[in-house]
């Protein structure tokens, strides 16, 4: 059983991790777009 502090910390960590993963995915979307544009010019 989690204490209220542990629950709050769990929520906080999950939120931060989701933001990091989301940011990473967005980064790769832009990177693949840029790679495609560069490769099309080869």
């Amino acid at each position: 059983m989690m204490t209220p502090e542990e629950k709050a910390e769990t929520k906080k960590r999950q939120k931060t991790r989701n933001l990091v993963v989301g940011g990473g995915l967005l980064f790769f979307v832009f990177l693949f777009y840029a790679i495609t544009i560069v490769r099309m010019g080869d």
Partner: protein
Amino acid sequence: MTATANTKAAVNLPADWRDFFALTKPRVMSLVIFTGLCGLLAAPGTIHPVIGFTAILCIAMGAGGAAALNQWWEADIDAGMKRTAARPLPSGKIKPIDARDFGIGLSSASVVIMGVAVDWLAAAILGFSVIYYAVIYTIWLKPRTPQNIVIGGGAGAFPPMIGWIAVTGDVTIMPVLLFAIIFFWTPPHFWALALFVKTDYAKVGIPMLPVVAGERVTRRQILAYSAFLVPLAVSPWIIGATGAIYGIAALALTLAFFAFSIPVGLRESSGDNDDMKPEKRLFAFSILYLFALFAVLVVDRVAAAQGWIA
């Protein structure tokens, strides 16, 4: 895995993203990124900045993935050593299965992206370097032979080679020489460290050279590798692949490296009260040495491209 039962099994809270980042050994990765970037910048030819950035990103991801797999396998060993006991796995901040999946995912993605976006030969060598570090070195040879560091040096020697091949698309003598420089730099670099943390390695049963063969042999080996590094580091200049800027700087830096290794190679430690200053100095200088050597390689290439030198 060796046996993770001894590490803290219960992980109540989800791992923080910083713990995953720590799994990638960021400090080691900084050297990997730097040498990979130098290999890429020093190579003859041009590469689009986006593709070059992708190549370095893939090298970093591959190194990070391999480091995560290394820590997953060695969680129990790390738990037994003061230097590594606070890492995310032995301290119970990350579940072993999460670390393993993170390592596999990161290294697989790095190889695929490198192949699709940059070059398949570079991707193949990147994939081999991950397997070399995570399987051949970590699982197979590190716990079995006191020459583990010599063999492990190969894993860290791949990045400049991969960076170079990302530009040229083929393997020539120069990327092989860059590989060889890091390969022969690693033993004196790491054995200097092993000399002043040898108690830890002995405790967890890793057959480091100072533990198995003794200090005297290790010190002689450090000296021998450092001496061999002198002609090797200068060889790109001798064969005409670089200019005098690199040649003179490489000679000066490697002679300094050799000079630092002489007191380490010729002395005997005076027991537990020895402060091991020569070993610590050699270890610190060895890191500076590699950064400086590869930086000057790029400076030399830029100078040649700009026509500053003949």
